């Protein structure tokens, strides 16, 4: 009895301890990020590895998600003779939900895991301590550029995903299924709002997701047990936790933004 109570207490202390460390770590990273502007080259190099190298998976996934939306939307709408609204259905679902969410999930799997593994290995091979010995702050040199790069890359990736998805839906709807070209775009333009759908949906949501995913990724790497097993576990945790955080936050953001 006391044993299980103690186990519960140990678990809770561990969880809250990690939460607290994570938030303190975020504050430190933000402070370090502020000093990074004169040395933006470090961030650019990280945008290359988290953003540019994620482009392929984002473009391929966006095309197929858009094409599937086009096919399924057409099958549903054609029963009501409303296949002209296909553009609205594709664009609204992509800008509001699928674009930012799927892009963030892919980003967590492709870039987040790599960030954790990289920082974790640096810790396991004592490179971070080495930097400290040379009076180089690893938060400033290693963590902050990666955090900023994730924050910058995520909205751009989500925008590319969404735009490519709309084109994929257009290709299937207009190109293959014969929906009217003009109606597809004009209905879309009539119903999709710039502030509500594009700015709130794509930009704000993906900024939040980029923030959370990179935060979890760099923290898990920095906080991992410095063994090969610890790095592996931390990488898994990054993907699981950031995916869950993205899905949970998406519900909260949707409830806040579109609940009129």
């Amino acid at each position, binding site marked *: 009895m006391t044993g299980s109570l103690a186990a519960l207490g140990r678990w809770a202390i561990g969880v809250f301890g990690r939460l607290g460390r994570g938030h303190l770590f975020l504050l430190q990273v933000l402070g370090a990020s502020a000093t990074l502007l004169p040395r933006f080259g470090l961030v650019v*190099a990280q945008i290359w590895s988290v953003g540019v190298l994620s482009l392929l998976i984002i473009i391929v996934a966006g095309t197929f998600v858009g094409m599937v939306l086009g096919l399924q939307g057409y099958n549903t709408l054609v029963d009501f003779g409303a296949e002209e609204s296909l553009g609205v259905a594709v664009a609204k679902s992509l800008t509001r939900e699928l674009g930012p969410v799927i892009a963030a999930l892919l980003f967590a799997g492709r870039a987040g895991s790599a960030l954790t593994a990289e920082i974790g290995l640096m810790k396991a091979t004592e490179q971070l301590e080495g930097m400290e010995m040379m009076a180089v702050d690893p938060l400033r040199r290693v963590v902050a550029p990666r955090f900023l790069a994730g924050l910058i890359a995520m909205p751009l990736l989500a*925008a590319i995903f969404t*735009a490519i998805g709309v084109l994929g839906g257009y290709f299937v709807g207009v190109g293959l299924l014969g929906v009217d070209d003009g109606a597809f775009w004009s209905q879309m333009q009539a119903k999709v*709002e*710039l502030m509500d759908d594009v700015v709130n949906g794509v930009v704000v949501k993906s900024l939040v997701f980029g923030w959370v995913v990179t935060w979890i990724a760099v923290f898990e790497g920095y906080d991992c047990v410095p063994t090969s097993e610890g790095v592996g576990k931390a990488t898994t945790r990054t993907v699981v936790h950031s995916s869950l955080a993205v899905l949970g936050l998406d519900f909260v953001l949707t409830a806040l933004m579109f609940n009129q």
Partner: protein
Amino acid sequence: MNTRTVEIGVGVFVALGFAALLMLAMRVSNLAESGGGHGYSVVAHFDNVGGLKVRSPVTIAGVRVGRVSDIRYDSEHYVAAVTMSIEPQFDRIPADSSASVLTAGLLGEQYIGLEPGGDETSLKDGDEIKFTQSALVLEQVVGQFLFSKASEGSK
């Protein structure tokens, strides 16, 4: 990977991202057509606006000339006061035009249709459209139909 390639790659990536955002803003959403709220506004009172919403279109002869900018309840006269923002290039709408709440298609959204009158003077900012026709509420139409059927039968 040398720095030059990385910089070019990141440049292309950022340009691509902004191009995608621009496409979403211009091609997918309605930024291109909404010229901001600088039209003139006219008011009309309806007994019932049905499913009319703010930003619903205002049309003449099926062509969109403006949007509904505000719907509020006038508690003095128990009617709905609808403010419409008409785009400035449509400045020759006769002052005795009538407004009705119409439905696009059988299940479509509701919009305001303006029917031009014969007055020489045009509507100006702040004017009121006097002649209005409310939205058709399905239950009332069915009710009227049943009522007229019943009165026919009793004859």
